[in-house]
């Protein structure tokens, strides 16, 4: 689903954000990108979205060579990628429903389709009663759910999340991770850049650790830190009592 071949990104000032990175992410995987601030996680996300161009190397996303994609085709690439950010990026002048519908309106979906898909996705994120509210009338967790709903309403093949729990308290973060987990179980590949030790350790998914633009660790079932993984048993941490979802939820309206 995503493949990076010897990708290097050097910014204008000479900062190397990615150094000869090669990575292969299969369809339906849930991958954490971990590492300290400035390690290159967000750059990787931006490269996948073609918000930045590589300096060297090749990136394949959903069968497309992103590095050679002409500018006019980039919007079509982005339609197959949902994005969630730490700052939610919601439009304050639009209601919850309108924010979610906006993602479909701008790609020209018919009104009837928009209405039904918005309803379904709001139900998925548990906001079906809050569709008429404005972002400033919601808590941080609720705003992030709207952001996820908007990212997923088009049923993308890939969901990229850049620090989606960065602004949230641990309990709210659990709710967000449950939704991302549910989305992943529906077949969507999820790539999440995060600082959140507890979540990474609790989820027990593939972990790609990046430091100074290089992949320093890639584990199919990993924790936030290698050492911590050895000290900590595979069981989830106390703040994340159970992230595995019951089957009926997983097969819900996704």
């Amino acid at each position, binding site marked *: 689903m995503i493949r990076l071949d010897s990708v290097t990104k050097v910014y204008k000032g000479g900062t190397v954000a990615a150094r000869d990175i090669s990575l292969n992410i299969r369809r339906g995987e849930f991958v954490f990108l971990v590492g300290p601030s400035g390690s290159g996680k967000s750059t990787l996300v931006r490269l996948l*979205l073609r*918000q930045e161009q590589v300096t060297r190397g090749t990136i394949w996303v959903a069968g497309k060579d992103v590095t050679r994609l002409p*500018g*006019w085709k980039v*919007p*079509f*690439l*982005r*339609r197959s990628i949902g*994005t969630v950010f730490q700052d939610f*990026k919601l*439009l*304050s002048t639009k209601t919850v429903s309108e924010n979610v519908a*906006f*993602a479909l*309106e*701008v*790609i*020209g979906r*018919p*009104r009837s389709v928009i209405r039904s898909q918005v309803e379904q996705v709001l139900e998925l994120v548990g906001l079906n009663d809050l569709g008429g509210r404005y972002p400033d009338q919601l808590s941080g967790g609720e705003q992030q759910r709207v952001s996820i709903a*908007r990212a997923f309403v*088009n049923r993308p093949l890939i969901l990229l999340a850049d620090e989606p729990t960065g602004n949230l308290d641990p309990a709210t973060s659990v709710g967000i991770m449950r939704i991302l987990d549910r989305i992943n179980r529906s077949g969507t590949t999820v790539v999440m850049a995060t600082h959140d030790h507890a979540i990474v350790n609790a989820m027990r998914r593939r972990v790609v650790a990046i430091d100074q633009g290089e992949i320093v660790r890639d584990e199919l079932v990993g924790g936030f830190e290698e050492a911590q993984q050895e000290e900590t048993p595979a069981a989830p941490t106390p703040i994340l009592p159970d992230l595995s979802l019951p089957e009926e939820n997983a097969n819900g309206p996704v």
Partner: protein
Amino acid sequence: MGRFIFLVGESLTNLRRNALVAAGAILAVFISLTLALGALVINELLRLNTIGWQQGTHIIAFLKDPDQGGADPAGQLAYRDEVADWEEVEAVHYVDKAGAYEEFKEIFASRPELIELTDPLKLPASLRIELQTIDLYRDVQFRLTANPVVREVRSFGEQIEQLSTISRVLNLLGWGLSLVLGLAAVILISNTISLAIYARRNEVSVMKLVGASNWFIRVPFLLEGLIEGVVGAVLAVLTVWLASRNLHSLGDTIQLITLSIPGQFFLRWGVVLVLFGATVGVAGSILGLGRHLREVDS
């Protein structure tokens, strides 16, 4: 259709949010096109008012009497035929002394004492000359003056030339000002669009993230510029048209000149100016988009 309505809705939202700046852009287009159309109207009025002169008699050559060294009536008629053969001349009409007196009586009908005091024999015969084109009047005037049978030559060419010069200056001034103000309108519209992009940078950023095509993002801003240009142009055409109608009613009180412009003139130039306004609006939008859309986080 739904997409079109969405795009128009987005443009109207832009205009509402930047109402003051948009009003400035509309005003710039309005002023520039009002000046342009005003100059055109004045030019048209000059043309309409001089068309009679241009198509009628251009030169009058008063002839000497035989006792002043001139020709007798037969000789004067022969001279008429000679002038009629000149290639610059379209037609020549001979007015003898009796004809001149009749004309004199017509002109001074309100002053009978003057008519009574005037001796018909003192009025000179004349040749009324219509030229192929008015531009040739100097050559013909020179040739007539050189002939000893001619007493005096009067020509309307000079007046027509002066009016043509005024018309040319007005035209040049009008179009020059319109071009400068049109350029100002393009810059103002471009700034309006830049401000609109800045005001909606979050929306544009989200649109880019969720895969809106470049044209889908651009169209509302292009429509915004188009609306500003067209509204400014329509207002300019309406203003000049209304002013011209008022001028027309004023013209009823002035008998000698016409201040009436045909409706077709406004229709023709109205379409041209609205198209020009639309072009100015779209050009301004493209300029604003090019400069600022790339700066919004892609």
